[in-house]
């Protein structure tokens, strides 16, 4: 598979998933985005985002 094709598989595939869910009800949450967890700066000198492969 070529990397360019990942746009279709991941982005459009995910968007389709999300659109399909839009018609469904949400979970019974309190809409506050959840509780902040520990180590807000990443905590290991690699702030910004999780490492990948």
């Amino acid at each position, binding site marked *: *598979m*070529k*990397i*360019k094709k*990942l*746009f279709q*598989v*991941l*982005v459009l*595939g*995910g*968007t389709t*998933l*999300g*659109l399909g*869910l*839009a018609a*469904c*009800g*949400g*979970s*019974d*949450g*309190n*809409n*506050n*985005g*959840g*509780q*902040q*967890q*520990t*180590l*807000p*700066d*990443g*905590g*290991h*000198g*690699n*702030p*910004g*985002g*999780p*490492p*990948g*492969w």
Partner: protein
Amino acid sequence: MVDEHTRRHADRVWAARHGVETGAALRFGSLSRRMLQAGAPEALVELAARASHDETRHASRCADILRIRHAEIPPPETRLLEYAPPTLSPEERLTYEVVAQSCVSETESMATLVTLLDEARDETLKSVLHELARDEVQHARLGWGYLTWARERMDLAFLAPLLPVMANGTAGPDLFRPPPPGTDEPTLYQAGVVPHSDRQRVYLETLESVVIPGMTEYGVDTAPLRQWMDRQHAALAPAAVGA
């Protein structure tokens, strides 16, 4: 013939992946709980919970590879790492974490897996890569699906200046530096590792052809991310000229 630098580098990469997977298991578990609290669709909540279990299984596959390589298996990541700036609202922090994990990190991991699958010959390695790729598709889609839900509830413009921060964090401190000895050998592909120069190319190509058009679909300004990419390209240019 694989030299010692190259063999050790491959061992280190698989050990690091073990940490990536155990850390991702904790993060997806947390994201699932936070999505539930935020009222996200149950299917997304369940997808994140399933991703957490997947990542634990992936870590065991990395451990299998390390055993085959007679390399040490590191202890699992036990810290729940969060990356969102604390100045963001709770809703924005959740969105940041989902985007950083799924739209950037998992999307980049898929590109790495796709690249490795094109090169792998060993049947055990191919089997592991296939298994992980099947799951990672869902882990990346989770982020884009979440944005479809979130865009109806919040302004996603806040992500624009933060995309380079995410991209920089996922790249890590060494990706756009010159390759240390043993890290840029084509033989690494047969150990399931992308050589350093190809990693740089794959990383930027994935941002260019997947993440940027994806964020554009969601109305997020990608100019800051493009500027970050331009700086990485410029940093690589002298090395390419000297090659």
